[in-house]
């Protein structure tokens, strides 16, 4: 028996069969990473269907192919040392005109929470349940990041797209608790690793509160307000 909903099982089937649009698949992978039961289910289905892949006639690799791949890794390492690479072949650019449908996004956002109860990155440390979750979309409607606000002056941000952060730029996470308080920084990041954010003295998050990530000068906005291009923005969905 499984504790996963039929909706999630259907999404898992679509995911393994390759029927999920890339932007949704990225989010779904986020859920898989957080839920051991779903990870096992997806892994088992993959392994069961693997004979289909093994039935393809093998093809000899070209001379020098392995060396070319390894040279590519070398470039990748260097690119990583200064910025997240975004090649033209990335899934995001491949699908930037295809936003996930609202219902699936909602379902996935709900699933992120439903499955996240208790455990976060590393599976070792129980996390409090977030009070709100915001999926931040770019201007094409493609998910870029997910912010979870725990309501006790901590939040987490995870990126679900490849985002190019030039060496002289930082990412900055913002929220707008109210028009009176104005845009308030939740933290500055130099790369797109999942990050816990701690801040001070903000009122608890509310439904429809705005969250956004902008690209700012290295170290964060010089004015204390967002100045750079918006990477993604979204509104809080209450979870409790």
């Amino acid at each position, binding site marked *: 028996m499984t504790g996963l909903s039929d909706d999630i099982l259907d999404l898992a089937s679509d995911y393994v069969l390759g029927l999920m649009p890339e932007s949704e698949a990225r989010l779904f992978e986020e859920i898989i990473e957080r839920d051991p039961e779903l990870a096992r289910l997806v892994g088992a289905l993959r392994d069961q269907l693997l004979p289909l892949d093994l*039935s393809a006639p093998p093809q000899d690799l070209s001379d020098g192919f392995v060396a070319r791949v390894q040279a590519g890794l070398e470039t990748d390492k260097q690119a990583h040392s200064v910025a997240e690479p975004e090649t033209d072949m990335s899934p995001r650019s491949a699908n930037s005109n295809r936003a996930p449908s609202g219902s699936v996004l909602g379902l996935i956002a709900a699933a992120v929470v439903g499955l996240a109860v208790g455990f976060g990155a590393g599976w070792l440390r129980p996390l409090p349940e977030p009070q709100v979750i915001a999926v931040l979309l770019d201007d094409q409607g493609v998910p870029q990041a997910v912010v979870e606000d725990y309501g006790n002056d901590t939040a987490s941000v995870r990126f679900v797209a490849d985002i190019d952060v030039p060496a002289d730029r930082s990412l900055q996470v913002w929220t707008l608790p109210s028009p009176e308080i104005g845009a308030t920084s939740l933290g500055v990041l130099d790369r797109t690793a999942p990050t816990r954010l701690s801040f001070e003295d903000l009122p608890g998050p509310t439904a429809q509160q705005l969250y956004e990530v902008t690209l700012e000068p290295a170290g964060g906005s010089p004015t204390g307000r967002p100045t750079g291009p918006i990477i993604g923005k979204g509104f809080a969905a209450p979870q409790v």
Partner: protein
Amino acid sequence: MSDDDTGQDRAAQLRQALADCAAGREGGIAAILEIEGRQLLGVAQRMLSRRDLAEEALQDAMVQVWRKAANLRPDGGSARGWIYAILRNRCLNILRDGRRLAILPPADLALVQEARQQIVPEENWEILSGPGKLRQCLGGLDGQSRQVILLAYVAGFSHGEIAARQNMPLGTAKSLIRRGLSALKECLS
């Protein structure tokens, strides 16, 4: 050495190769290509039908494996299944990236599309599934369910493409695929 021993041996080698990747040792990728490279390229070639695109997909996949190996969950199925899934996703990205395929000359694009139509034959589908339980369970499905599952997994068709190809409404295609896969999972479990 029995097939099982070979399989266990390969599984251990792949796990070690992924551990090497996670630790930043490039030999890990070379080891994966040594063990699985020919078969991986075969999968990409079958789906993309062009050698240059297949090699591009495999190269992209190895970069992804390299980047993601450290995040691999031990309970998420076999290393082998994970690597093939990454490759298939790269192939799908190429197939579904309109701009990517648009740079091909029209005649070449037509050939790619034409070849995809032939990947899943109505008759003699058994060649796609290898021996074993999967073949038996696929054989137990009704022909239409089997066909749509193979079109998705083996040829990389989208819901919309499958509906158009099978001449049925999108919703019908989706539910046919889900019902078929659910019956398949039942049989495999």
